[in-house]
């Protein structure tokens, strides 16, 4: 090894220094950097669809109305009671609370902290998350205590023909 660098002509075949045209590497340092930059470009471009999705949401094109879903009959829910249901899909658990005679509020009840199911505590008049004791204001869905920092996404409800119906989900506020 000691005389390796003292031979003339220099006998070398490596990646870091090569001046023989026929030893040109398929992937030299510059090619590697180009590959890296190219991959970064590909990733950047492939993320554009998500940008389109976000733009669609922000431009209100996502104001999607789902088929109205009957939650409960008005006579089956007392004032101050709550009902669990699923809306818009069967995997999105939600909660309907009757605050007063005419006022119904509904929220998707996955806690905005770590998605535990938020439930309604009638005595305390607030929504509580069992996992870390996050609390939400029933009137607005805004967090009032504990780890969650974002409001629960509200669900618009309609009352017609003695039934309470879920209509659409208000956009989730990040």
């Amino acid at each position, binding site marked *: 090894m000691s005389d390796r660098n003292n031979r*003339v*002509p*220099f006998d070398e075949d490596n990646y870091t*220094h*090569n*001046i*023989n*045209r*026929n030893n*040109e590497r398929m992937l030299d340092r*510059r090619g590697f950097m180009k590959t890296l930059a190219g991959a970064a470009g590909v990733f950047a471009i492939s993320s554009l669809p998500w940008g389109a999705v976000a733009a669609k949401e922000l431009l209100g094109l996502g104001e999607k109305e789902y088929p109205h879903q009957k939650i409960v009959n008005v006579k089956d829910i007392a004032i101050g009671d709550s009902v669990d249901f699923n809306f818009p899909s069967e995997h999105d658990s939600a909660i309907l609370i009757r605050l007063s005679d005419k006022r119904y509020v509904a929220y998707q009840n996955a806690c905005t902290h770590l998605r535990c199911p938020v439930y309604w505590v009638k005595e305390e008049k607030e929504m509580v998350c069992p996992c870390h004791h996050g609390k939400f204001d029933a009137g607005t869905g805004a967090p009032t205590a504990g780890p969650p920092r974002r409001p629960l996404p509200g669900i618009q409800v309609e009352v017609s023909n003695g039934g309470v119906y879920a209509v659409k989900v208000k956009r989730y506020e990040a």
Partner: protein
Amino acid sequence: MKKRLYIELENCIGCRSCLAACTQCGGHEQRNRNYVYDVNPHVNRQTMPLMCLHCENPACARSCPAQAIQIHESGAVLSALVEKCIGCQNCTIACPYGIPKFDEEQNLMYKCDLCIDRTKDGIPPMCASVCPSNTLQWLTEGEIEKKQEQHNLDNGKWVTSMPYLEGATNVKVNLPGILQGTEKLF
């Protein structure tokens, strides 16, 4: 049939044909890549051509941080690759013969590449093909060996690379008397 550039310095007559040929060669953009030097300026008229000597272990390529100077399989040390050269001018400093030249405008080194587009196909480089005095020759190894043999002629007065004097004739001619330092009456 590998051929080499053979430079027979004593033949040079200083006509600068090699410079002109290099200047006018395609792709050289009116710039030559070789030199013709006065050997003893103001003392005598002897000149010598100097082009890249295409080292086995080229200092220019060794010093290049971007490895823009490559050695061709034929042994020619090529000019800087345009896409690699970073214009640092290390090669111009490293070369003991001052061969690499630098183009300030393009930020690019350029040097003699032994007309690789010609020599790779066995055509002599431009300078050698135009040299009128056989200073620059394009020879095979065998021919060069023959050139380097020495023949003593005329009782050790002359040394030539050939067993006979070039241009020797069978007719003997005397030198004019004036040159011999004698005056002839008839």
